[in-house]
């Protein structure tokens, strides 16, 4: 598999770095404070390939904190709120679109 750092990054809009927390697998987002948050609204926003690569490299280096980091598209509304950029990321943020059995 190609390392995330070796993959070509094509940024077409505001993006974040997201991953899953190592000890429990929960969805997390890379913050500007070089940490992870479970809230998308805390995520650091990148808008070009160089910034995205740098943020991703920093995330990849924190292998104990989170696994499988990648760049994900987001939307930023007029109030500055960060929203998922596609259905996959919406499901990762909000959970399954179905009622759970219990």
């Amino acid at each position: 598999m190609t390392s995330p750092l070796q993959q070509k990054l094509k940024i077409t809009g505001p993006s974040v770095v997201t991953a899953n927390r190592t000890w429990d697998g929960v969805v997390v987002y890379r913050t500007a404070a070089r940490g992870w948050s479970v809230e998308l609204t805390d995520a650091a926003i990148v808008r070009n390939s160089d910034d995205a690569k740098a943020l991703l490299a920093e995330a990849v280096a924190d292998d104990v904190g989170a696994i499988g980091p990648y760049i994900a598209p987001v939307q930023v509304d007029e109030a500055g709120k960060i929203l998922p950029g596609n259905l996959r990321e919406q499901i990762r943020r909000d959970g399954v679109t179905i009622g759970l059995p219990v």
Partner: protein
Amino acid sequence: MYAYDEIDRTLVNERVSEFRDQVKRRLSGELTEDEFKMLRLQNGVYLQLHAYMFRVAIPYGTLASNQLRALAHVARKYDRGYGHFTTRQNIQFNWIKLSDLPDALADLAEVGIHAMQTSGNNMRNVTSDQWAGVAPGEIEDPRIWSELIRQHTTLHPEFSFLPRKFKIAITASDHDRAAIKVHDIGLRLIKNEKGETGFEVLVGGGLGRTPFIGKTIKHFVHGRDLLSYIEAILRVYNQYGRRDNIYKARIKILVHELGIEKFSREVEDEWQHIRNSSLQIDDEVIEDIRSRFIYPAYEKLPHMPDELRQAAADPDFEAWRKNSVAAHKNPGYSIVTISLKPIGAPPGDATAEQMDALADLADKYSFGEIRVGHEQNLALPHVAKRDLPALWKALDKLGLATPNVNLITDIIACPGLDYCSLANARSIPIAQELTRRFANHELANLIGRLHINISGCINACGHHHVGHIGILGVEKNGEEVYQITIGGRADEGAALGNLIGPGVKFDEVADVVEDIVEAYLALRERPEELFIDTVKRLGVEPFKERVYATR
């Protein structure tokens, strides 16, 4: 039931200890994810969208009641109170923490359950007919041979680092409930003219992005030669399989590229080197395994007991009996399929409470035994006919008596984009909507046997290629789009479905399926002509015309 011996128990327990240490080293940073990934996969641990997913093996689909209770316990203590039965006789837990996994595995090990052979590029859980050992007309119990292969291949170094995953299924009945033709190796148990047990061996079946129906490589392999012949196939695969390209790494691609004749010659050459080795199985080994399968002490019971005769007056009971109760090799008993497809619910899910209650019912009515089928339903394999009314009432209270087995709402679906990191589109909501559309049991019965299979990506975990109606979710320009095929089947007449036309949007899928079904009801020659037979007779065109005439 199969009774584990000391070797099995030691292996399972040592495996737990080993994984506990690996998890500890991973969480401390001593192991990187790159180093750990293969280790976790070899213990059934995937990373999905929201969390780790833990897949537990149910070899050849046979569970004891205490094992089902242990699965309920894991669901309740370490997950979110439910589990998902898969299309290969496994169960998955979707929300488990890595830090909890060693304890979960240890709890399962106490009842002889483990997660070996549930992921990674190795030999996967050997699957079989969920009616094995009880189906009328079965040649012999195929689980004996499934267990033999399980023992031989578990942690076998030669099969632990294959080019890709490798799946074997075995059937011993005329009607194939194990989908052997879409497995890497399919085994059909047969007898030769001397009455000796052997196997027709099929190879190169599989679904995914490049689907193939398995081809017969040898018409009869004697039982004593089964391991050496399988090993010969695996050696040829290990030697020539494409490790350079994940999309071409399955044995089906190798068989296709070499051609079945050349592939079989390679296997034959290899086999001649090893067939008379220690791999040859003597009768004692088989008899030892056979002796570890404990069969119920059936009573001699009437074919039509009073309890059953009286209950027949209840139309709801009769609807369930006709749909979900099948003949047993012992005429006083029945096989009861338990639908995990209630209307509007995710296919294959069962709550911890349902699992516990079902374990109790298995103890009371089925000699403590439960089976898991690839259709994502369960079965109680040894129910006395006199107990059917009482069992039905108990199942109904648990929401486990939906009379839709093999009908249009008995949908096979992968977890799809709601859970899976590979998926491009959702599967479960499509299944839920379809079950609501066809919730009327009279309508479902009017339609008759019709299998819908849904996959949320080309990896085809929902086996869409072999659904009578297959639905494949893809992503197109940021939207979920679904391609519809018809005419597939997974049984002894296995075939791949044909695309009916351009993909349709999420909201249109149920309408399209309704159109297809309406076309079928109008086109069938008689009520007994199944959907799949009408498609075979007429082809795709009339259905295509109906679906796209107004779209």
